[in-house]
């Protein structure tokens, strides 16, 4: 059995990396994920891992080094946040297109400008169409468990895609929580030995990575990437099953909280889900049938499963801790709404953009959202399709 410890999300993630013991870790630390690399570099200095640490001169270079190391045949990890992920943007597509199973720990943070170091998911949403698998975590335990599972998902031969694992910057990255740290051996056994696929360092079989791919082949390779992303869904569930068999904690494509008979429901990522659960418990005690769908996997997007889970709900609010600035609503909203388009019955749906730049989401905000959803469920009318909340009006 593992050990009960009190740790910040960052230290939990650094410990997962220590237990995974990747071959190469290239990074350019940035707030609020700095502590991950700071702690991990101590593990390297103390000889607790065999990892080659590459301190790069920028995140673009860090991801480039990760791509080179992964192409060479190494198990590769990194960590970043916000502007760091934004600076990696060009290279994210190259990691995915080259089908390199890099795992990235991400402490989600707002994007400049104005400059802000606190938690929202704008960084991850900017990378949502880069070909990376995206996993989100409510708390330190989930960030730790998800990172360990991410290695198996990324490296599965039906997938071979990079994976980013998010948690809220500061709210989770810097808060100390009680959680279970698994035994080193158990984690090593779970992730297993890495067998690279067509590595560059296999010098008996010289090969080329990253060739020019024009009208005659590019779309075929994109079609492969699409297939790999589709395959990821069942691989994610298979890895989660093995994880729960060994360690007892259950994971799926999303978490349904008191959703089975719910008439009103909220969809929200990351730590805000904890706040929503607290309100749901209170509402349930008053007889309100409230529920939550907390997405764990945003890429691949589990549209069919989401539709099945939300179809019977009367009114749903998708809450985005990021704004697409498309003058409609946040990035989760159109995808969730589209997933339910063919459902019968179909819930009425609204969107709230909240908590940008780390602005707190209070219990009263969530209660107000549920009250609005109850009115929509009763009247069948939506007053405001999408709007900002937790903002001074």
């Amino acid at each position, binding site marked *: 059995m593992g050990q009960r410890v009190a740790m910040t999300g960052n230290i939990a993630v650094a410990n997962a990396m220590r237990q995974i013991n990747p071959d190469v870790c290239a990074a350019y630390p940035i707030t609020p994920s700095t502590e991950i690399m700071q702690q991990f570099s101590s593990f390297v200095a103390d000889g607790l891992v065999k990892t080659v640490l590459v301190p790069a001169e920028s995140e673009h270079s860090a991801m480039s080094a990760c791509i080179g190391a992964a192409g060479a045949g190494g198990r590769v990890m990194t960590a970043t946040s916000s502007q760091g992920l934004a600076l990696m943007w060009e290279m994210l597509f190259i990691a995915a297109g*080259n*089908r390199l199973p890099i795992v990235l720990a991400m402490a989600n943070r707002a994007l400049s400008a104005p400059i802000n170091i606190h938690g929202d998911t704008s960084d991850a949403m900017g990378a949502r169409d880069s070909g990376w698998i995206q996993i989100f975590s409510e708390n330190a335990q989930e960030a730790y468990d998800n990172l360990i599972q991410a290695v198996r998902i990324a490296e599965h031969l039906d997938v071979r895609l990079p994976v980013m694992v998010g948690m809220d910057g500061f709210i989770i990255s810097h808060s100390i929580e009680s959680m279970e740290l698994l035994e080193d051996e158990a984690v090593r056994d779970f992730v297993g030995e890495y067998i690279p696929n*067509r590595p560059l360092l296999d010098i008996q079989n010289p*090969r080329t*990575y990253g060739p020019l791919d024009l009208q005659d082949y590019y779309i075929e390779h994109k079609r492969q990437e699409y297939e790999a992303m589709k395959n990821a869904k069942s691989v994610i569930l298979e890895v989660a099953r093995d994880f729960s068999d060994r360690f007892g904690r259950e994971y799926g494509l999303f978490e349904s909280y008191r959703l089975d008979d719910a008439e009103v429901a909220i969809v929200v990522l990351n730590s805000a889900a904890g706040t929503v659960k607290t309100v749901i418990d209170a509402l349930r005690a008053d007889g309100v049938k409230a529920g939550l769908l907390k997405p764990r996997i945003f890429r691949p997007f589990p549209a069919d499963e989401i539709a099945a889970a939300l179809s019977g709900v009367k009114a749903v609010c998708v809450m985005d801790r990021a704004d697409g600035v498309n003058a409609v609503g946040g990035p989760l909203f159109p995808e969730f709404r589209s997933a339910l388009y063919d459902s019968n019955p179909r819930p009425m749906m609204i969107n709230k953009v909240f908590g940008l730049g780390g602005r707190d989401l209070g219990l009263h905000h969530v209660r107000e959202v549920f009250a609005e959803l109850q009115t929509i469920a009763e009247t069948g009318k939506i007053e405001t399709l999408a709007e900002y909340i937790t903002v001074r009006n």
Partner: protein
Amino acid sequence: MSNLKNWKELTPGAVIEEAGNAAEYVTGGWRTYRPVLDEEKCIHCLTCWISCPDTAVIVRDEKMTGFDYDHCKGCGVCADVCPKKVQAISMEQEGK
């Protein structure tokens, strides 16, 4: 495009398993001027050979023997670097 592989037959990530197969990709069609060698004049100094950006100068037994027109792009570097007293390479317009 019927003889090209479909998406299921290709290596993932566009990895090329065969070393050096760029030679199969014929690029000489870009050329508007072609280098022509005057074998009488050539002193086999091989300056053209080390200067050609497309390794399109063919050397056998340390002797310059001509050009690989499948890959020569007609840039004229070889003609330019050939020693002034020798001038064994002339650039002639394609299609003439």
